[in-house]
């Protein structure tokens, strides 16, 4: 460090703009001589640091005097970067929500929806572990309703600059929100319904995946892993109406894993500001339960999306549809209960946002979103009189604004209008306020 300070001082003394010297020419010659000397010294320092770079080489600019800084070539940034590649970093995000149903003010609720701490640690240049730990609803104990979760935990190994493999608990790469669910990344206090009820964000599975991108802007991700467990279906509860897949996902919690699932996603970002893509997830979800009437049941979920961000505008649209096969016998065993397993479910939305005002680090972005979704669009045929009618399609308008105090701190407000109220499912016109951050 002393060496660097000395070097910086020397460099500074050389670089400070000359003031009232008369003999500019001789001064220039002197400066040139010193510059050569400094360059030689720098080489020496660099050589010294090429040895085990245990301490990151600080840059000269970092120890500059209060009056000026010299931006130059003294450090070995590669050594710094490599040191960081094998270091540990922390990040996080959080979301606090207030929901006030306009017709049922007594149901108004304020909630610390989630607080997340993320970490990554590089074991070497190509291998790192990446994890996120999450607390939902503020307090977790036997008497409270909060949850503590490991949201992601995987090893990533880069095989080449443009592709690699991941293994562990990973986010399923479907939709626009599941992989990018930080509150600063989406409009509105709550995540949209389609990517909550149909694509059950935050959806993760344990497994192995390959990922990569091409120079033409294609980004791919394909993997095999665990899947939902249809044996968890609770026909007596409305969970399956709220989100069929969220009610049977396993989150790698002692996950039943006889039947592997496959997933794949492809996105194209070859034109700046445009993202066109889609993904699929499929797997058997009977998991080999003895005597289970839907042992051959298979889930399929597909989605397609587009997001276009021209200038201050941000447009996105997504459509997704899922099916669960071979549920006839299982649903027959649920006769009389409110929530049989759907044969198909779907949803879609279109959203437009406009960064209307920007000042310093702040911006204000009003948005409008229209969603349609149905978590029980069809049910497997049953004998006359025992069948279940399809659920009505829910339609939601959301009008609101994200106010970014800076790009990483957001305050949100919106109003949501539902075409059909359903208190049990939380559907009903409401007014929402939210706070979100990310670091």
């Amino acid at each position, binding site marked *: 460090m002393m060496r660097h300070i000395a070097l910086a001082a020397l460099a500074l003394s050389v670089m400070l703009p000359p003031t009232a010297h008369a003999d500019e020419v001789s001064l220039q010659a002197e400066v040139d001589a010193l*510059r050569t000397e400094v360059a030689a010294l720098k080489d020496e320092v660099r050589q010294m640091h090429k040895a085990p770079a245990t301490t990151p080489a*600080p840059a000269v600019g*970092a120890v500059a005097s209060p009056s000026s800084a010299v931006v130059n070539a003294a450090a070995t940034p*590669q050594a710094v970067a490599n040191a960081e590649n094998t270091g540990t970093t922390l990040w996080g995000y959080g979301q606090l929500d207030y929901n006030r149903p306009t017709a049922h003010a007594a149901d108004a609720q304020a909630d610390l929806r989630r607080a997340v701490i993320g970490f990554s640690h590089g074991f070497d240049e190509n291998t790192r572990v990446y994890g996120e730990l999450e607390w939902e609803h503020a307090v977790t104990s036997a008497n409270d309703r909060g949850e503590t979760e490991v949201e992601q935990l995987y090893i990533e190994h880069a095989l080449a600059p443009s592709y690699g493999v991941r293994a562990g608990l990973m986010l399923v790469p479907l939709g626009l929100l599941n992989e*990018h669910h930080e509150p600063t990344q989406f409009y509105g206090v709550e995540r949209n319904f389609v990517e909550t009820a149909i694509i059950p964000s935050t959806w993760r599975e344990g497994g192995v995946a390959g990922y990569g991108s091409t120079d033409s802007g294609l980004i791919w991700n394909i993997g095999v892993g665990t899947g939902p467990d249809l044996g968890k279906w609770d026909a007596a509860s409305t969970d399956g109406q709220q989100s069929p897949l969220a009610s049977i996902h396993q989150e790698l919690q002692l996950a039943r894993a006889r039947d592997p699932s496959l997933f794949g996603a492809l996105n194209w970002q070859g034109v700046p500001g445009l993202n066109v893509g889609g993904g699929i997830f499929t797997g058997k979800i009977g998991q080999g339960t003895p005597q289970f009437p839907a042992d051959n049941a298979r889930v399929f979920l597909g989605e397609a999306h587009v997001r276009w961000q021209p200038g201050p505008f941000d447009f*996105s649209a997504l459509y997704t549809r899922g099916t669960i096969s071979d549920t006839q016998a299982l649903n027959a065993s649920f006769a009389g209960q409110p929530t049989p397993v759907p044969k198909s479910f779907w949803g879609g939305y279109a959203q437009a946002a406009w960064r209307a005002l920007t000042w310093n680090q702040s911006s204000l972005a009003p948005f409008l979103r229209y969603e349609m979704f149905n978590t029980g669009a069809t049910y497997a045929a049953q004998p006359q009189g025992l069948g279940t009618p399809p659920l009505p399609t829910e339609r939601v308008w959301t009008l609101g604004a994200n106010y970014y105090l800076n*790009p990483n701190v957001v305050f949100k407000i919106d109003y949501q209008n539902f075409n059909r109220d359903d208190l049990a499912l939380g559907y009903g016109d409401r007014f929402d306020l939210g706070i979100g951050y990310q670091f």
Partner: protein
Amino acid sequence: MYLRWLIPLGTGVAAVAQIAHAAQYMTIEQAQRAAFPAATTFAPAHAVLDAATMATLAAPAGWAPQIWQARSGDNQILGWIMEDRVIGKSEAITYALALDTNGAVLALEILDYREAHGGEIRIPAWRRQFVGKTARDPVTLNRDIKNISGATLSCRHITEGVQRLLQVYARTLRTKSPD
């Protein structure tokens, strides 16, 4: 049924077996040669920034880009190339910015990227947006530089970094006489 698991696992293991050097996409020397194929020397250069300028640039602590002047065999200045680092989401991204003699961007190259997500900034179509930009352009995300959804932080921080380097050129290098 168990065999189904073995296929992708086997593929993964086979791929791991042929380990490549992954962290670095390009060395600064490669970036120098790519941006200035006619150059014969890359002379380390210096820029002096006063505290007020540093504050204006909102430079992070320890900010220390490296600068080289590209010169041809007959000692003509061909332009400048700068190597700098920014933080993506949580990890450092090292990149190189090449400027012509008018201070307009010739190329932006990502040298090193270690983030688990957001590597899409390496896509050439995104980086080409910077070509031709000068210190007089806003060089601001979602204004003259379009975002990559899913890589917002990387895009924002690289864009801010390029804007700073363009200011370094405008405030110091532009008026600098050849050494």
